[in-house]
């Protein structure tokens, strides 16, 4: 154990005292605000007015979050067509943003809300588009 006698023990001490003077990196999150960046991909949101019910989002979604629910019927010319609106099971959402990219009408957005923990997963099912956008 010759190294012991000529050791450089305690190399970190100077840096330790310098660190004390700096602001800590820990954010006071549950007690203070957490700032996320502009592009942060959080909870999915839909603007029911812009949605036309084209089902593209349902097709592209990799996590099967979106299901199209028939909400009524309308006549196009002589043909009766079902009107569909998306319902979102947000507990399976992986926030990839593929639906937002593919929505031609700009109805979908990823908000910066990241506080997604709930007691019942059913409470995250978003049916906003079903009630208003008829």
């Amino acid at each position: 154990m010759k190294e012991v006698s000529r050791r450089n023990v305690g190399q970190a001490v100077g840096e330790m005292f310098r660190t004390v003077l700096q602001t800590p990196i820990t954010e006071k999150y549950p007690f203070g605000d957490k700032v996320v960046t502009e592009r942060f991909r959080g909870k999915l949101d839909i603007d029911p007015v812009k949605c036309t019910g084209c089902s593209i989002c349902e097709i592209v979604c990799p996590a099967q979050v979106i299901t199209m629910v028939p909400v009524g019927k309308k006549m196009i010319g002589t043909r009766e067509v079902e009107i569909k609106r998306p319902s979102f099971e947000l507990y399976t959402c992986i926030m990839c943003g593929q639906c937002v990219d593919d929505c031609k009408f700009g109805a979908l957005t990823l908000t910066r809300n990241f506080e997604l923990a709930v007691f019942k997963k059913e409470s995250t099912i978003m049916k906003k588009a079903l009630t208003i956008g008829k």
Partner: protein
Amino acid sequence: MSEDTKPDQRRESSAGLMQYSVESAMPFGPVHPSLKEPEYFKLILEGEKIVQVIPRIGYVHRGIERAAQERTWVKNTYLFERICGICSFAHSLGYTHAVEALTGFEVPKRGRYIRLIVAELERLHSHLLWLGLVGHWAGFDTLFMWVWKDREHILDLEEAITGNRVNKSYSIIGGVRMELPDGIAAKIQTELKYIEKRADYYTKLVETEETLTVRTRGVGRITQETARRLCPVGPLLRCTGIARDVRAEDPYAAYDEIPPHVQTSNDGDIASLLTLRLNEVRDSCRMVSEAVEKLPTGPYKVSIPRAVPQGESTFHVEAPRGELFYFVKSGGGSAPERVKVRSSTVANILTATEMLKGHTLADVPIVLTGMDPCFGCMDRISVLDVDKSKEWSIGGEELRTYGIEYYKRKLS
């Protein structure tokens, strides 16, 4: 232990390399404080010295290769990205590159530069994560906290560019998803200067702090000959002096224009891995800052039709842990016929078992960390005692007796 399972009746071959008695195996994992992910290693001990290690993987096998066969090409991008949280971008890069090679489309130059920037930022954060973990396993929590503190800077940058800290969903088939945000170039440059300064400090710290070097120098040594035989990838290969890097040899993204300076070291132990990875951190800083300066204008993606022509494509990228291999076979349908992923840890695990040989149990965590394991990527080590033929995994009682005997022997 019943009579019919006498030690000598239950011998089996261990990975074809030696014979051992099953009764003397010491399990390491699948749940162990030094493994953050479940994996099982059978350690064969001679006293406290490890003579043989047999891995058993698959505890987090999620059948992703099968799942990929039932998803469309675009959906798979997000699936493969979730193989690993740390090198998620490398996975999506490997997959998208392989698919692009099938379609024959070329990603625009700007898109390739942005891919390089994000890939190198990911390497920075992965290497810093590893350095912190080495500090943690060596009982040096201060280093761990400091390094992770600095890693936050990189993660914040990644969030600003891609919108998420780990699962970036940034590389898509045909380029990258979004343009770089405004004013990010200046921010990247200042943060990189900070990281470079810190990397210099950490190099000094890990090379001189004696309590750390006694744990790392000469520990987990692999020779160049072993490395040639067992084909590890990434830093584990480079620390034996073989300069092998996918980025340099088979460039993808914009690595042909901004080539890496391939770092090597000759000792092949944990201490040299520390220095090597810190050198790579500095090199990545240089590459990112060069790429930001030279960033060409123009489109950042091309739109590629969602049907992929028939064919096979082999691609590999340099993930932070080494070569990451993708093989994609298309049958012309909307989903791939077969995707094979070989993550870097699978290639490294055999070398890691070799590194463990000859060391004591106290060194297992630091050596295993040395290869930067990512079992999520890879998809178990138990200890056998050759002289004693005693099963450690049976009960506390026997272990206690063994412990008493061991220390009696050691103290006498």
